[in-house]
């Protein structure tokens, strides 16, 4: 059982993620990218009169099917074959997170912050709801996410993707080093 539940090293999982790029191209000229699925959900459910959402999303339905596949994969690998051990992050990260008040470091995400009750606290609301909003708004404004820009775009030597990737990191660094410590005290 251990072999099914244990995490994979970076040099196994990284190249496998990279292989998504050619496989999608070979299967049907599809470019790797996940955040577009959020747009297709809008187009399918709440298009209104917005030009940006009035297109034939069914042509791109493969992207939604792919996203649904991720959910099923997450269920099999993360629920059925759940890794019972905590994520083996570095000692420094463990102590930094303790210092910010994150005592329970089991599971994939800090359960003290990410639970339904904390949605009603300012800290939980900001990290879950505002954070999620930023992910959706930012990726679409940037024209892609980590998969579409950082992996697909960089693989295809696209300059805009390099700029976007650098900005993803600047945003993440600013949040981690300068803003998150304050949010954690709320």
């Amino acid at each position, binding site marked *: 059982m251990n072999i099914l539940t244990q995490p994979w090293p970076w040099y196994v999982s990284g190249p496998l993620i990279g292989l998504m790029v*050619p496989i999608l191209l070979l299967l049907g000229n599809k470019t790797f990218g996940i955040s577009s699925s959020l747009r297709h959900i809008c187009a399918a459910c709440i298009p209104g009169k917005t030009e940006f959402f009035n297109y034939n999303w069914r042509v791109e339905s*493969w992207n939604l099917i792919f996203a649904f596949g991720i959910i099923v994969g997450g269920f099999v690998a993360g629920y059925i074959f759940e890794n019972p051990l905590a994520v083996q992050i570095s000692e420094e990260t463990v102590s930094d997170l303790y210092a910010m008040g994150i005592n329970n470091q089991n599971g994939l995400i800090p359960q003290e912050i990410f639970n339904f009750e904390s949605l009603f606290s300012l800290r939980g609301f900001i990290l879950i709801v505002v954070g*999620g909003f930023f992910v959706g708004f930012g990726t679409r404004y940037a024209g892609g996410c980590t998969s579409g820009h950082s992996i697909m775009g960089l693989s295809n030597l696209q300059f805009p993707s390099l700029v976007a990737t650098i900005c993803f990191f600047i945003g993440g660094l600013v949040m981690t080093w300068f803003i998150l410590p304050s949010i954690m005290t709320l």
Partner: protein
Amino acid sequence: MSKIKFLILGFIFGVILIKAEVISWFRIQEMFRFQSFHMYGIIGSAVVIGMISIWLIKKYKVKTIAGEEIKIASKEFNKGNVIGGLIFGLGWAMTGACPGPLYALVGSGLLIVLVALLSAVIGTWVYGILKNKLPH
């Protein structure tokens, strides 16, 4: 039925995301604190494999399984790459997840992430409404 291959591929991708732990808020914190090579190794090796693959596809003019010519649209630079990129970066460090991981986390039974995913859909929707008023 022709789309079932994308379901299978998405499934495989979901399994990889979980097993790579890139969907973990803890791993994302570790990355932004420069305290481990793990995430850099994953993104770096994925890009190297992607680059080599695209180079080979272009060099040998590889066709799709249906025999079509492979075309990859170029991306055009606009200010959104910067502004949107920064906003997504903030959200990435807050939720510890980008869109792919949001789906995988929901699948793994963490239903609270469904709220973040829904919020991401709303974020996309608001972008669509404001698009013409935003600098690009």
